[in-house]
């Protein structure tokens, strides 16, 4: 575990040498090996997210700040990032509220970089603030997870990562033609949560966005789900309801009735 917030590097060259031992082709790494960079200033949350990712067969590098993340990615200075072009990062998952650099600011920097702008970035937050979610998705975030993050959330993320975007299997939400199959192509729900004293029934959308509504990007369109609860304020206590039956929970709700 990255308890000291330091970086446990896992560069492509290292991975390749591991793979080479068994006489495996020196070509690209095992495609099932997903490498995730997790960013969170809370030690407890880092440990939990790391475990969640490891249990879903991801390799994890966990850092405690946006700056460390940029440092790890080689984006923290102006020098040519040639040496980093072999760094394989398949997903970046970051907390939103962090001292110094927020997850949003980190997201922007990643999207501005030529090496990493294609890497999906997922934002985590303890607060279900629609404007915040909007902003992140508009800036190119792949997904927005409400904390506390659950195994079902990570499994869902994971299932998207192992599918080649070229295959139209309905799981990659960025494929427009799969919009109608977003719900049906979800991974099977985890065993039912047996305790949910605060469980609220899945709500249909009735959100009033306090901002103006810019045109929806493909990610936003396919983030809509009738199952998530678009509570606009900081009232996140009701959001500890069972999530197993709503794997697309907490995604930004935009247009009521959009299915």
């Amino acid at each position: 575990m990255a308890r000291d917030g330091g970086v446990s590097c896992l560069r492509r060259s290292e991975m390749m040498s591991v793979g080479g031992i068994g006489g495996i082709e020196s070509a690209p790494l095992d495609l099932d090996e997903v490498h995730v960079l997790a960013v969170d200033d809370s030690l407890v949350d880092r440990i939990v997210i790391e475990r969640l990712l490891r249990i879903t067969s991801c390799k994890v590098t966990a850092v405690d700040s946006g700056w460390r993340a940029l440092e790890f990615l080689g984006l923290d200075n102006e020098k040519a990032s040639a040496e980093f072009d072999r760094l394989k990062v398949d997903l970046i998952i970051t907390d939103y509220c962090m001292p110094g650099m927020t997850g949003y600011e980190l997201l922007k920097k990643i999207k501005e970089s030529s090496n990493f702008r294609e890497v999906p970035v997922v934002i985590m937050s303890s607060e279900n603030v629609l404007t915040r979610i909007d902003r992140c998705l508009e800036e190119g975030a792949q997904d927005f997870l409400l904390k506390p993050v659950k195994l079902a959330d990570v499994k869902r993320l994971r299932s998207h990562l192992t599918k080649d975007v070229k295959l139209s299997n309905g799981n990659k939400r960025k494929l427009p033609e799969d919009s109608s199959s977003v719900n049906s192509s979800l991974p099977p729900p985890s065993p039912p949560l047996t305790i949910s004293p605060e469980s609220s029934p899945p709500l249909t959308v009735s959100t009033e966005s306090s901002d103006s509504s810019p045109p929806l990007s493909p990610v936003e369109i396919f983030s809509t789900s009738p199952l998530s609860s678009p509570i606009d304020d900081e009232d996140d206590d009701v959001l500890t309801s069972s999530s197993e039956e709503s794997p697309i929970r907490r995604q930004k709700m935009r247009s009521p009735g959009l299915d």
Partner: protein
Amino acid sequence: MDALIAQLQRQFRDYTISLYQQGFLDDQFTELKKLQDDGSPDFVAEVLTLFFEDCVKLISNMARALDKTTGAVDFSQVGASVHQLKGSSSSVGAKRVKALCVSFKEYCEAKNYEGCVRCLQQVDIEYKALKTKLQDMFNLEKQIIQAGGIVPQVDIN
């Protein structure tokens, strides 16, 4: 030995259920248990240990920030620590602690000194109470294993 194991398992089950019923734990704790396996048999205990260490640190920060003798109280500083505690308590399923943090945060925002001080005292009591309860729960687990049994999965319903 079987009778002993069965008895311990019953005790464990009842105790665990009571912790949920009394609001000490919520479904996020259940989530943490899912992450525990033979490869990481002490995962939950490890995370909770870190959480309690976090409590000590953050509560001390809050106390310092609420200390009037050092000058005017910086409520945003108190709020920052409360926010962190709220986050970690949420992540481990420490339901009561988290609920207190919600109220605490409101008092910070309202710059209500008495309210903050009350919350600070309560949060201190609450995390310690949870710590004691969980220690008892982990002890029961240990006893079951030492008696040669396995710790049952508890269905909270």
